[in-house]
């Protein structure tokens, strides 16, 4: 048998992921079987399992996709001096993805991470030191008045995001996740009342 090239493999994996996510968004994830996904992609079950070892694992791929997105986001961020805006755009990326999909899917994803004690890529990506740098700059330029250790300020923003996301899941989508997060994060960062962030206004309507 001819061996698939890396590119073909990647294409097939992408097809499986995209198709599965479409199905998960249309129906309850519990009502979508691996067989359903295979039929929709026109592949066999053994082929499916060559690429992915479970239905839930698809969610890991989907939410980790937020990391790839961050690359583009970072490249295209305007306002290089708007450190506050840059920080908040970057740290809300996964939450935005969660809010744009379905509470149930984000719930399953987080439950899987908790069960497996998995630190996903977004927590170890190369953007972490970049965001910490933005925090340092925002402190220096007087955009934020929380002058704590930037590493720990970043950590608290990240963990606040995790906490609020979990509350959001538990409340079954009873409040606006990103909007609430931004409000609380601004209060924690102690944003200088005289500073106006163009990116915040543009990205979140605030």
């Amino acid at each position, binding site marked *: 048998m001819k061996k698939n090239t890396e590119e073909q493999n990647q294409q097939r994996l992408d097809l499986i992921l995209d198709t599965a996510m479409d199905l998960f968004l249309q129906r309850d994830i519990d009502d979508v079987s691996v067989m359903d996904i295979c039929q929709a992609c026109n592949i066999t079950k053994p082929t499916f399992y060559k690429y992915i070892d479970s239905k839930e694992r698809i969610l890991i791929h989907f939410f980790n996709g937020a990391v790839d997105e961050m690359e583009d986001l970072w490249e295209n961020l305007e306002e290089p001096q708007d450190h506050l805006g840059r920080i908040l755009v970057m740290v809300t990326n996964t939450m935005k993805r969660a809010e744009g999909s379905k509470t149930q899917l984000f*719930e399953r994803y*987080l*439950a899987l*991470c*908790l*069960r497996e*004690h*998995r*630190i996903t890529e977004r*927590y170890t990506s190369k953007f972490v030191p970049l965001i910490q740098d933005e925090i340092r700059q925002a402190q220096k330029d007087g955009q934020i008045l*929380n002058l*704590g250790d930037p590493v*720990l*300020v970043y*950590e*608290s923003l*990240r*963990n*606040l*995001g*995790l*906490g*609020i996301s*979990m*509350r959001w*899941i*538990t*409340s*079954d989508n009873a409040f606006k996740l990103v909007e609430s997060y931004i409000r*609380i994060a601004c*209060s*924690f960062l*102690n944003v200088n009342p005289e500073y106006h962030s163009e990116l915040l206004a543009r990205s979140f309507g605030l």
Partner: protein
Amino acid sequence: MTKKDLLVTIQKTAFDLFNEKGFDAVTVMEICRACDITKPTFYKFASSKGALLLNYYEYLLRTPKEGWNDPVLHGSWWKCVEDMMIYAIDTLIAYGYELAAQLYIYNFHEGETSLFTFQDELIDELARILKNAREEGSVECHEDYRQLALSLIDLMLGYVGFWCLSSGSFDVKERYLYVLRQSCKYRG
């Protein structure tokens, strides 16, 4: 044994079994045998293993009878805030990261008996204490005290959540305490 004592006994026994064997490995039947009760009795007290875990946490949170609103006992109003949050975080850490993770997972499904919403009394109490802490001058936190209390709890649950994800690999209490002070603009 009163009904309440029996419930606490079941919770405590189940908790010890979970710790010993892992949450998934323990069956309801095993818990019943260890407590010398029948299955129907078990279900009179708890709807599932997860509910047991959560109720036990609620019980532990309510246990300190002297309360948190005593600045003489704790040293200052701000120390009341710190002691209350440290108690809440210690209680979760005592679960261990495996069981604490189970607690979160169970919680996702149980909106009405949730880790995030059940502490209404505690949230109100924390808000009142924060107000006093600001008035005594230890912190310059903003003045929507209830909102602040809620976000400090979210922050705490986020810290413990990340601690679970990382298999308990850092000193969650020490970090949280630092960030708690930063977030409230502690002046000490």
